[in-house]
C-alpha cells in the first residue's frame, strides 16, 4: 500500500519530474529514480532494475519496486505523457500494471494508453465505491462482527483518497498486455470527461457507471439509463444503497460458512482456529 502522506508525495513528484527531465535529456528514456540524477548513467547503460530508495525517504508511490521490465517501461512511458497527473502506480510482476491519474487527466490517460502503449482494445470501464458498507456484509456470517460504521476507508492498488474511484482497463492485443487506469472522483456530479472519442466502446460502460454510481461523464452524447427503468431513483451499486432482499430476510446461504461438524461446537474462536489449518479436500 503506497503511503498516504500527501505533502511527501508532492515533494517526491517534483523531484521525479526533475529527474525525468534530466534523464530524458541524457538518453531519452532513461530509468528514473527517486534520488535524482545520480543513477542516470547506470540507467542509460541499459539497467532496468529499480534502484532502491534511501531508507530515510518515503517510497515514491509512482515508482513501485518491480523487476518486470515490460511494465516498468510502460509505466515510464505513461509518466512521460502525463507528468504530474500520474499520482500512483502498482506493478504485479509478470501479470499486471495499475496506474492512478487525477480526474482531470482521465481522458488524457486514455489517449496516452492508446497512442503510446498501443492499447487499441477497450475492455471495460467502471467504478469502485470505497465506502465501507454501512450494512456490513448484510450479515452473511453470524461470526462476523456487526458492521462498524466508523470504519476507515482503505484504498486499493495504486492508492486513492476519495470515496469514488473510476477504473478502466485497456489492452494491447499485439503484445498481449493490459493496463488498469484509475482516477479518483472527488465530486461525482461534476464527473469526468467522457472517453468516447478515444474508445467508442466506452459509451455503454459510461452509461452503466453513471446509472450504478451516479458519476457524470461530461460530453457523453446519450447519458441515460441502460439497465434500470427510466424512473428508477438511486444508484444501486453505491455501498449505501441497501440490498433490500437481505434486509428483510436472513440469507439462507449462511449455512455455508458454519464450521464443519467435526470442527467442534463451532463458536467464533473455533472457526478462527480451523481457518489457518491447511486441509486437503
Amino acid at each position, binding site marked *: 500500500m503506497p503511503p498516504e502522506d500527501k505533502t511527501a508525495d508532492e515533494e517526491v513528484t517534483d523531484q521525479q519530474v526533475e529527474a525525468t527531465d534530466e534523464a530524458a535529456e541524457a538518453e531519452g528514456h532513461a530509468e528514473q529514480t527517486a534520488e535524482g540524477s545520480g543513477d542516470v548513467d547506470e540507467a542509460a547503460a541499459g539497467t532496468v532494475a529499480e534502484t532502491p530508495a534511501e531508507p530515510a525517504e518515503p517510497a515514491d508511490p509512482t515508482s513501485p519496486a518491480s523487476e518486470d521490465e515490460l511494465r516498468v517501461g510502460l509505466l515510464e512511458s505513461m509518466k512521460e505523457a502525463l507528468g504530474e497527473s500520474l499520482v500512483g502506480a502498482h506493478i504485479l510482476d509478470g501479470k*499486471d500494471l*495499475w496506474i492512478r491519474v487525477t480526474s482531470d487527466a482521465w481522458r488524457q490517460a486514455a489517449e496516452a494508453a492508446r497512442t503510446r502503449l498501443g492499447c487499441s482494445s477497450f475492455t471495460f470501464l467502471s467504478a*469502485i465505491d470505497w465506502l465501507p458498507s454501512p450494512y456490513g456484509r448484510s450479515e*452473511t456470517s453470524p461470526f462476523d462482527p456487526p458492521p462498524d460504521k466508523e470504519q476507515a476507508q482503505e484504498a486499493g492498488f495504486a492508492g486513492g483518497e476519495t470515496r469514488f474511484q473510476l477504473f478502466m482497463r485497456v489492452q494491447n492485443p499485439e503484445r498481449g498486455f493490459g493496463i488498469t487506469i484509475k482516477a479518483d472522483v472527488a465530486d461525482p456530479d461534476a464527473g469526468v470527461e467522457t472517453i468516447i472519442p478515444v474508445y467508442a466502446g466506452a459509451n*455503454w460502460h459510461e452509461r452503466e457507471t453513471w446509472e450504478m454510481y451516479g458519476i457524470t461523464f461530461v460530453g457523453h452524447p446519450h447519458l441515460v439509463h441502460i439497465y434500470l427503468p427510466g424512473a428508477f431513483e438511486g444508484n444501486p451499486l453505491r455501498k449505501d444503497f441497501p440490498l433490500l432482499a437481505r434486509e428483510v430476510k436472513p440469507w439462507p446461504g449462511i449455512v455455508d460458512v458454519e464450521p464443519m461438524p467435526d470442527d467442534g461446537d463451532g463458536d467464533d474462536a473455533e472457526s478462527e482456529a*480451523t481457518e489457518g489449518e*491447511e*486441509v486437503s*479436500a
Partner: protein
Amino acid sequence: MTVTEAQQRAYVAGQAADARVNLEIESEGMTLNLGPQHPATHGTLRIVAKLDGEQVVSCEPVMGYMHRGYEKLTEVRTYPQITTLINRIDWLGSFTNEVPFILAAEQLMEIEAPPRAQWIRTILFELGRIANIILFLGDMGVQLGALTPVFYAFRDREYVLNQIEAVTGGRFHPNFDRIGGLKDDLPKGWIDDTKAVMNKVRDFCDLLEELLLGNEIFESRTRGIGVIPGEVALGYGLTGANLRASGVDYDLRRDAPVPMAWNEVDWKVWTHPDGDSFARYWVRLQETREAAKIVDQLCDDIPAGPIMAKVPRIIKVPAGEAWVATENPLGEMGYYIVSKGDLGPFRVKIKSASFNNISIVPWVTRGVYVPDVITILASLYFILGDIDR
C-alpha cells in the same frame, strides 16, 4: 387476484416510459420495435430501429429486461457461493464463466490448481465452448431461413452436454470449479466417450459446412453484410470470434498467461480478413473444430495426481485486486475482484463479452436493410444473460 392501485399506476407509468422512448427516436420515418420478445433476439433484447423505407437510419438496443444485479449480489456472498451466480451469465457455456472468477481468486490467494485439475478444467472449458457454439452454428441458419441445421445442432449438442453432465452432474449449470481445483475427478470410461463425441462434433462441422457454407442463399445473405473493420472492432472492445473475423489475431487462450493447459497442445487460432457476417460464422465453425482437437489431445495425456490444492476450509481471500480474463465462447470474459480479506469480495466487476460485442450494433446497422439487422445480430452472437448480467 386483485390489482392494487399502486400496481395499476406502475403499469401506466411503464407504458408511458415506453411511449417516451419511441417519441424520442421517432421524428420522421418509421420506428420498428424488435422485441423484447422476438425469436431473433435470443431472450429479451429490444431493438428500437428508426427506418427510412427499408433502411435503418438508427438503431438502439434497449437492455435491462433481464438485469439481475450480479455485481451487487457478489458483494454479499462468499467466494464459493458466487460460482452459482456466475453460472447464469452465459448459460450456454456455464463452466466457462466459473473459470476466470476462480482463477482471479486463486491469483489473489497465490495458489494454483494442480496440473490434473488444470487439464480437466481446460477440457470442460472447451466442451462448454463446443456446446455453446454448436447452437450458434445451427441457429444462424434459422435466422436466415434455413430450418434444418438447428435440428442437427440440438441433436449433437446433447452429446456434448451428456459428457458435461457425466462429470459435473449438471447439463447447464455445472458449478464444478472450486478455488484450488475441482469438485471431483472424471468418472470411469469418460475419456473414451468424450473422444467418440468429438468425432460426432467434427461430423457436425462437416455437415454444417456442406449445408450452409456452400449454400448460395446463405452466402448472398451474409457476405459483405455487417462489415466491421479491425480498428473499429478493437475500439468498441469486441472480442472473441467477432474480433478474429475482422482479421485481428488475438486469442487469450494463446496470448494471456493463465494456469490452464491450452499451451500444452497443438492448435491454431483462425482469423478471417473480411469482417462480415460470413467471416464470423466461418471463424466459429473452425473454432469448434479446433476445440474438438484440443479436447482430443488433452484427453490423451491427462497428468495423474490430486485434483485439489491445499486450501483452507473456510476461504478468506487476502486483500488485493486481481483481473483475470479468459477466452470464452462469446469472447473475452473477465472478473475484476477487489478483496479486503473477507469471506466475500468487496467489489466484483464482471466484464462479459456480449455487452461489448453488442455495443457495436448502433454503429454496424446504420444504413443496412431490415432483414440484415437479423443477420448481423445473429452473427455477432450474444446471450442475453451475458449482456444484462
